[in-house]
């Protein structure tokens, strides 16, 4: 299926926005299969390998200014693992999103530029986990100081026990003297009282970053999910631009 870039809320790779302008986007989520034909069998037999792969292509015009898509795509080549998040439709609590994490290979062919715009074809391929029915818990936004979304949780209507994958994308971070910031996904049975469910790796560097963490099957995940971020230490002017999404299995 093809999307215009104006129809996509965000497209983040390792915390960096790779969404071009005036581009066509195509996504493929595939499960690989492997020939398993026994000797003497008339028909070809293939079996799933239970390995997923996410592919995306983006063709069109990319912003060449500092920190924008062109820089991110050119710099992403050669990185072995990446975390990708895509927000369709809207950047809002409860909106659908896609997440993928794994070994990254990408090609980025670019031609002549006009002012700050580059005509390019970008292809991304992530061989690893694909979560194509995630929901946004914390929309991509700049937030100052400690923050949480416990007043606007996502309610699944029932608890679940089949596991969960949570994604964090941090596009920019200013610690302002604080030593670190920790982002958590919290769950609640009633939307009133919460407990920690997922704790992402403590962030001490201000470079863009991303992470995928999972909750194993068997753990009871309560119906309400929300996000909380807290800084450690002391300082002032601490801000971060971040997004969190999660998918229950």
């Amino acid at each position, binding site marked *: 299926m093809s999307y215009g870039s104006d129809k996509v809320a965000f497209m983040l790779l390792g915390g960096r926005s790779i969404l071009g302008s005036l581009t066509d986007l195509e996504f493929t989520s595939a499960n690989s299969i492997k020939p398993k034909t026994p000797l003497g069998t008339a028909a070809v037999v293939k079996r799933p390998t239970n390995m997923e792969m996410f592919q995306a292509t983006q063709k069109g015009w990319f912003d060449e200014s500092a920190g924008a898509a062109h820089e991110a795509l050119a710099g992403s080549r050669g990185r072995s693992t990446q975390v990708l998040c895509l927000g369709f439709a809207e950047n809002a609590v409860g909106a659908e999103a896609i997440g993928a994490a794994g070994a990254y290979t990408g090609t980025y062919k670019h031609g002549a530029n006009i002012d700050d715009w580059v005509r390019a074809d970008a292809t991304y391929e992530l061989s690893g986990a694909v979560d194509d029915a995630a929901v946004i818990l914390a929309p991509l936004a700049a937030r100052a100081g400690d923050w949480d979304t*416990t*007043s606007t949780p996502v309610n699944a209507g029932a608890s679940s026990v089949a596991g969960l994958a949570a994604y964090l994308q941090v596009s920019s971070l200013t610690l302002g003297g604080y030593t670190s910031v920790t982002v958590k996904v919290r769950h609640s*049975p*009633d939307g009133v*009282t919460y*407990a920690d469910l997922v704790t992402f790796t403590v962030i001490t560097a201000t470079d863009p970053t991303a992470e995928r963490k999972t909750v194993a099957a068997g753990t009871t995940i309560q119906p309400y999910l929300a996000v909380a971020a*807290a800084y450690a230490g002391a300082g002032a002017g601490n801000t971060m631009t971040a997004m969190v999404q999660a998918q229950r299995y």
Partner: protein
Amino acid sequence: MHGQEYVAQVALYNKAGVQVAAPGQTCERVAASSLATLLAIGWIVPVPTPGDGDIGPASTPADEAGDQVAFGALPTRPGSRRRARDEEGS
């Protein structure tokens, strides 16, 4: 629920993101409307009260011996051993 105290089994937070109970702490600051739900899922447990049978001074060796007698550990009683010897000699 009135009069009953509860202890948190996990760190609990309110809607403002403020921690209202650490593991092992009593739940005075937890929203009263949540208590029954949290109890049902095991995030909090009732504080045992006297008379529940699971609190009180630790058992003494004498208590233990008494328990053994009460539950039929007869071979360890001197009288039982004597009776056993008598039976062997007869």
